C-alpha cells in the first residue's frame, strides 16, 4: 500500500489500534460490571485459565459468570455492533443515501416478522430455522423497499419513505401474528425481544454469528473498490467496469443475511448502522477498504458500551438495548436529516 497520505486521513492505523484496545477494555469492563462485581484482575486470571496460560484459583461461580454468561454476551454484543455498522456503511454507499441502515429501511422489521412467524406459528424449529425465517423476512423487506423506491433510484426521500412504509407494514404483521396466535407469555417475550436484548445469548449464538459476520465482512471488503465506484451513482460505477446488478444483489443479500442473523438472536437494534459509519467516515474518509474494517471495530466498541449502559442504568433491571442505541442514534439521525435538508 503506497496510498499518499491525505490531510486528516492518516489516522486509519491509529483508529484501528485505538479501537482494538478500546474493544478489549470494553469487553473486560462488560465482564466485570454487573450485579456481581468481579475485579478486572479476576477477569484476566479467568481468561488465562481458560486459555491454559495460568492456573489461578477462582471460585466456580465467578468463573461461570465470567465465562458462560458475561463474556459470551459481550462478544455477541461486539459482533452485533460490528455487523450492524458494516450493513449501515454498505447500504449508505449502495443506495447513496446518508440515512440508510437496516433499521431505518425496515429490513430489521422484516427480519423480526420472519423470526416471529417461526417462533409463534412454528414454521420449522431450532436456531437455524429461526435465522432462516428472519432471513426470508429481511429479503422480503428489501424487495418491498426496492419495489417502492425504484431500486433506490427514486431519490433519497423516496427510499426513506419506502423504508418507513416497510417498517410499519412488517411491525404491523409482527403485532398481528403475536396478538392473534400467541399466548400472553409469548407476546410479552416477543415484545421485549423486539426492542433488543442480549439476555440469554451464549456461546452457540456467538459461533453462528461469528461465522456470518466474518464471511459477510470478507465479502464486503472484497467489493471495497466496487463500493467506492458507486460514489457518483450506478451509471458511473457501470462505466468504470463494475457489474452493477451483480454487486448490488450480492451486497444486499449479504446485508440481509447479517441483519437477519443479528435480529433473530437479539432483536432489532436501531441506529448503530447509522451513527457508526458517519463517525468513522468523518475520521478516516470514505474509502471502503479502510472504512469497513474500521466500522466493524468501532461498531463493536459502541455496542459493548451500550450494553454496559443498558445493564447499569437501573439496578436489578436491564433496559432494552434498542432504547440505549436510539437515545444516541436519534439525535444523530436528526442532525443528518437537518443538514441534508439545507440546499448545498
Amino acid at each position, binding site marked *: 500500500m503506497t496510498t499518499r497520505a491525505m490531510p486528516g486521513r492518516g489516522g486509519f492505523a491509529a483508529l484501528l489500534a485505538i479501537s482494538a484496545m478500546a474493544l478489549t477494555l470494553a469487553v473486560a469492563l462488560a465482564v466485570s460490571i454487573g450485579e456481581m462485581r468481579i475485579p478486572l484482575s479476576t477477569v484476566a486470571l479467568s481468561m488465562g485459565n481458560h486459555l491454559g496460560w495460568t492456573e489461578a484459583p477462582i471460585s466456580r461461580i465467578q468463573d461461570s459468570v465470567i465465562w458462560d454468561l458475561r463474556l459470551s454476551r459481550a462478544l455477541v454484543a461486539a459482533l452485533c455492533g460490528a455487523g450492524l455498522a458494516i450493513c449501515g456503511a454498505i447500504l449508505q454507499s449502495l443506495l*447513496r443515501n446518508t440515512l440508510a441502515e437496516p433499521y431505518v429501511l425496515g429490513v430489521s422489521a422484516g427480519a423480526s416478522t420472519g423470526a416471529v412467524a417461526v417462533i409463534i406459528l412454528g414454521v420449522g424449529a431450532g436456531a437455524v430455522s429461526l435465522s432462516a425465517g428472519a432471513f426470508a423476512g429481511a429479503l422480503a423487506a428489501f424487495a418491498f423497499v426496492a419495489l417502492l423506491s425504484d431500486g433506490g433510484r427514486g431519490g433519497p426521500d423516496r427510499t426513506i419513505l419506502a423504508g418507513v412504509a416497510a417498517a410499519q407494514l412488517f411491525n404491523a404483521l409482527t403485532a398481528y401474528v403475536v396478538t392473534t396466535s400467541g399466548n400472553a407469555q409469548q407476546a410479552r417475550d416477543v415484545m421485549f425481544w423486539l426492542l433488543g436484548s442480549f439476555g440469554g445469548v451464549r456461546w452457540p449464538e456467538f459461533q453462528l454469528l461469528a461465522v456470518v459476520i466474518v464471511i459477510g465482512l470478507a465479502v464486503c471488503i472484497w467489493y471495497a473498490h466496487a463500493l467506492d465506484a458507486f460514489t*457518483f451513482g450506478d*451509471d458511473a460505477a457501470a462505466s468504470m*467496469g463494475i457489474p452493477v446488478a451483480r454487486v448490488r444483489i450480492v451486497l444486499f443479500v449479504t446485508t440481509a443475511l447479517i441483519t437477519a442473523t443479528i435480529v433473530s438472536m437479539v432483536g432489532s437494534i436501531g441506529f448503530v448502522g447509522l451513527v457508526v459509519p458517519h463517525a468513522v467516515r468523518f475520521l478516516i474518509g*470514505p474509502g471502503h477498504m479502510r472504512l469497513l474494517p474500521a466500522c466493524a471495530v468501532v461498531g463493536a466498541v459502541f455496542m459493548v458500551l451500550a450494553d454496559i449502559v443498558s445493564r447499569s442504568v437501573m439496578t436489578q433491571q436491564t433496559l432494552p438495548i434498542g432504547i440505549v442505541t436510539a437515545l444516541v442514534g436519534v439525535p444523530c439521525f436528526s442532525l443528518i436529516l437537518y443538514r441534508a435538508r439545507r440546499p448545498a
Partner: protein
Amino acid sequence: MSIAATNLGWSVRRRTILDDVSVTVAPGTILGLLGPNGSGKSSLLRLLAGLRRPDRGRVTLDGQDIAGMRRRDLARRVALVQQHAATEMNVTVQDVVMLGRTPHRAPLSGCSAADLAAVDTALAQTGMTDRRDQGWQSLSGGERQRVQIARALAQNPRELFLDEPTNHLDIQHQLELLRLIARLGLTSIVALHNLNHAAMFCDRLLVLEGGRVVAEGTPDQVLTADLLADVFRVRCDFHRTSDGRRHILFR
C-alpha cells in the same frame, strides 16, 4: 474505425428512444452529437458506453461487439463523463480521479505505482494538480467537470464520451473545457447544445431528432439554414470566421 454503431434501436416501456441509429468515428477525431432536448443524445452515449443493451443493432470496438466484452475490459478502453456528477460523500479530487483506476485494479489491491502515475498524468492534463487534496464539495462547476474528465482519463481510454460537458459553465470555462477535450487527441463523442461550439471543435457532427439521425457530416455540411429550421425551429444567418469556420447568427 475505432467505435461504430450500426442500426441501434432502443425503447423503454414501448416508447422508442432510438431508432435505426448508426454512428462511426474515425480514430483521434471528435464527433459532436446535436439535437433538441429529448432527441436521444444521452441514450445514445449510454448504449455506446455499454451501460444499456440496445434492443436492435450493435456497437463494435475495432470490429468486436461490446455485448460480448467484459464490463471491466470495456471500461479500460472507453470512458464516459456524465451530465450530472453528484455525490454527498466528502471525497477529495485525488479520490475521485483514483476511481478511474477501478477497472485496472484487482479486488483488495492497494494503489500501484502505475495507478499513481496515471492519476498524476490525468491531473496534469486537466490542470488540477494543485487541487488534488481539495474536497469535491468545495469545487466550482467547471472544476468538477475537469475532475470528472481527469477521472475518465485515469481509465486510460482510447474513446471518450462526454454528455453535455459544458452545461452550467460560464463561457470562459465552456471554451477552456472544449479546448481541453480537443487537446487530448482521443476519439471523442461529445453531446453539445451550443451549435457554434460544435462547429468550432468537432470534426464531424451527427444530428438526432426524435431518436433518428437526421443529418451527418462535417459542420459545414450539417449546419445549414434548412436543417436548423427543421430540427431546432430557429432561423439564422451564417458568418465566416477568420479561421474559415462557419459561425451561426440567430435571427
